[in-house]
């Protein structure tokens, strides 16, 4: 496997913005007081949020718990079609979060699989309004091409159903997208363990988005750090070029000559055979 270009500063560029972290952290399902520690342990520079009816009378707001300088990525969860996603995106931008939006459109509430068709429609509408559109999608090559045409800044294919922690169920199809689509491929949904995040990065994913894998862990900030390290390891491995796989047979890692036999060492050690 060839050594990919080792960039000194391996930057992750999204919609013209530069990031050094390739870990997008979700903020759902865990308590507000853990958010700051988790964001810090994760080294995350982007955090997702949802938009809902506001609380009255001074109850805590999540924005008070997110460290300064972190990019807010509102999702359009709750939207069942493109029009609802557009409405949520516009309202989110009005709250004040910059131009990033993650499109999440679900008709199916059992598996929470995204509606690829409506997602393409929403992407086109929102890209025209100047949003940096990050569409959550079911890994389909044709949809990914349509999303690119529609102006998406990245694609976010699911690894497994949201919240399932099942890992890289759609691995082969994510690999197709990484190989064929000229956009950052951010694996989102279903990643339950750091090893799975690492594997996705070794495949060449641009970044990982994870929420439940952290939120359901025993020690949430520690798991956020574990994910961070795994994502960094996977990226380093990808850039280094992982070694070739032998489909059959083995290939010795130690020399094939100079074995100790009959109490004497044979002369003429050869170097390793490939």
């Amino acid at each position: 496997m060839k050594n990919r270009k080792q960039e000194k500063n391996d930057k992750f560029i999204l919609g013209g913005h530069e990031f050094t972290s390739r870990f997008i952290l979700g903020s759902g399902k865990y308590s507000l007081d853990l958010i700051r520690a988790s964001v810090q342990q994760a080294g995350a520079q982007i955090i997702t949020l949802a938009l809902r009816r506001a609380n009255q009378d001074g109850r805590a707001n999540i924005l008070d718990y997110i460290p300064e300088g972190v990019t807010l990525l509102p999702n359009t969860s709750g939207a069942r079609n493109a029009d609802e996603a557009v409405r949520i995106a516009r309202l989110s931008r009005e709250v004040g979060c910059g131009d990033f939006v993650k499109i999440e459109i679900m008709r199916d509430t059992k598996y929470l699989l995204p509606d690829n068709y409506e997602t393409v429609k929403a992407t086109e509408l929102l890209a025209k309004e100047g949003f940096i559109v990050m569409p959550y999608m079911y890994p389909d090559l044709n949809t990914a091409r349509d999303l690119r045409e529609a102006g998406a800044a990245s694609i976010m294919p699911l690894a497994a159903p949201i919240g399932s922690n099942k890992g890289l169920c759609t691995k082969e199809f994510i690999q197709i997208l990484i190989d064929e689509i000229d956009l950052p491929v951010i694996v989102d949904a279903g990643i339950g363990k750091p090893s799975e995040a690492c594997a996705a990065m070794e495949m060449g994913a641009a970044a990982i988005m994870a929420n439940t894998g952290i939120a359901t862990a025993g020690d949430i900030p520690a798991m956020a750090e574990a994910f961070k390290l795994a994502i960094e390891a996977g990226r380093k491995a990808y850039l280094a070029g992982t070694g070739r796989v032998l489909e059959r047979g083995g290939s010795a890692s130690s020399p094939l000559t100079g074995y100790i036999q009959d109490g004497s060492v044979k002369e003429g050690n050869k170097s390793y055979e490939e």
Partner: protein
Amino acid sequence: MVTINGEKREDCEGLSVTEMLKREGYETSRIAIEINGVIISKKEFNETLLHSGDSIEVVSFVGGG
């Protein structure tokens, strides 16, 4: 009578958005407003008055994935 986040509210007609938010206990810097499906920008809060029958949505960010 107006509706705010799905709940009916009396005596809001004629109030500005700013006044309504204060009375209802919403933190202005953390929210966005829609009246009858139209987003009202923050700079319009003082001048925009509520009318009888208005349906108002007040939204903010929460944790999500």
